[in-house]
Structures are given as C-alpha cells and as structure tokens.
C-alpha cells in the first residue's frame, strides 16, 4: 500500500487521501474577460509530465487538511510535501523529463 506523508499526521495509507489534481493552477484574475478557449484551457488543461509533478492532496479520512506534494509519476515516489500556498520546493538535481 502506498503511504503518503501528511504534513500533520505523518505517513498514512493512500486510501485516507483524496486527490486534488495539479497544484499551482491559479484562478484567473478576471474570469469574465477570458475567451472561451482561454477558460477551457484553465478548466480542463493540465500538465502531464513524466517525472516530478506538483499535486494537491487532502487527508480526507484524517485531519481533512489540504496540502501539496511532489510525486514522481514514473515511480510514485513522493519527493516532497509542503503547505498549500507555498511555492514548490527546489528538489535539486532531478532528471526532470518534460515531454
């Protein structure tokens, strides 16, 4: 079973968590000003890297707090966990694959 390190509760089973998609997707400053295409890009389009990916997670069956995690999509390794609202931490020398 995959363990996810909640910043508050420590490592817990993946089944206690809820996935929240890509992190750091900013809500548009002025949504009404967006074209349909730009709005669709905000709502539906997400990165799909092969490698480290910053994601939002909620410890829904535990402390019910949202946090961010960097997960390597190739290995499922959780490389870093940090507070929602903080910038993605520098992971140093990583063989990041950008498709």
């Amino acid at each position, binding site marked *: 079973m995959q363990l996810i390190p909640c910043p508050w509760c420590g490592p817990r*089973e993946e*089944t*206690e968590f809820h996935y929240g998609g890509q992190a750091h997707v900013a809500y548009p400053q002025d949504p009404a000003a967006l074209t349909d295409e730009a709005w669709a890009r905000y709502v539906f389009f997400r990165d799909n890297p092969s490698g480290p990916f910053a994601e939002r997670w909620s410890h829904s069956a535990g402390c*019910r*707090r949202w946090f961010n995690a960097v997960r390597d999509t190739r290995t499922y390794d959780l490389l870093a966990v940090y507070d929602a609202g903080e910038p993605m931490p520098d992971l140093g020398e990583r063989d990041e694959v950008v498709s």
Partner: protein
Amino acid sequence: MTADTSSRTSPLAAWADRLAGLAPALTVVERPFLTQLTVRASDPDAVAALGAALGVAFPADPCTFTRGDGPFGDVEVLWLGPDEFLVVARSDLDPRVPVEEALRTALGSARGAVVDTSAQRTTVALAGPHVRDVLAHGCAVDLHPSAAPTGTCVQTLLARAGVILQVVDAEAGVFTVLVRSSFAEYLAAWLSDACVEYLAGVS
C-alpha cells in the same frame, strides 16, 4: 403507534449484549451521550484561554489528546486539526450549555467557533488481550506502544469507517473509538466478526 421520544436510545443500545459476549478476548463498552464540542481556533492566546477555561491545556502536538479535571469535571481535548479540537466531557453535565458558553466566552473576539456536535458520534471503549489484533484487521495505523503511546489520538479508517481512535493506556491496551452514530452498528457488527477467531482461544 407513535414513537416514544421521551427517552434517548444510544446508537449501540441494541448491541450491548452481543458486544459483551466478545469478552474476555475483547471488552467493548459503549459510553453513550458524551458531551462533545467541536472547537475551531488558531490564535495561540485564544487556544490557551480555552484551555484555561476548561482546566485542561489543549493538545499542542498533532494526533494527541489531553485529559484533566477542571470546573466541568473529567474533560478530554482531542486534536482534530491544526486549528480544530474536540472537547469531550461527561454525559451527566446538566445542562451542558455552560461548557459551551464558557468556551465561547474564553474565545472572546478571536476568530473561531464552538459547536455542539454531541449527537454526531458515539463512544466505544475497547480493551482486552486481543484489542490490537482485532483493530489491526481493519486499521493500518501502527498501534504498538512504541509508535502510539498513551495520549495518541488519530483520525483514520477502521474497516473503512471513519473513526477517531484514542490510546487511553498503551501498556494496558485500552482504546477509545469515536464513531459516527450512523456507522456505529456497522462497526459493532464488524468488531463482532473480526473477534470470532479469538473467542475460542481465550478461556
């Protein structure tokens, strides 16, 4: 026939005999109708004031609970989140409003909330030589005394039902499970089933 609403019926009232039958491998006793208050506060001064009003300091560390005797008797404060706590007091406080009011007064103008959630959960006290074995059938959290000492309080899944699990006495193997009233009978049935293999072995 009209329903009798003059007396309270606890969520596990109908299960008392069946749960008692699990002893001595597992002793399961419902402690119904405890006073439970959900407290939200993040300001450290406000949290300290809330603790002073209860006579029990609020838990400073995640996944722990504190216990003490104050003006409202034996009270526990459970950590539920970085700004969220559950105050559990005796059931025979009458009326229970003063606890709520004392906490609201202590909170003052600080941002937060005190909400009576007594009906949300019932409380089940677990003990016995096989309590960890039974819990391990449905709970992935490590409950060995070295990993979960006395005072640990985790929110997790027990047999896929959301629970709050308190380690009351790690050495003696005494636990408290708070479960939502609507899940209580399911959990009682699961406990009965998970305990079957230990009933014959304990004489």
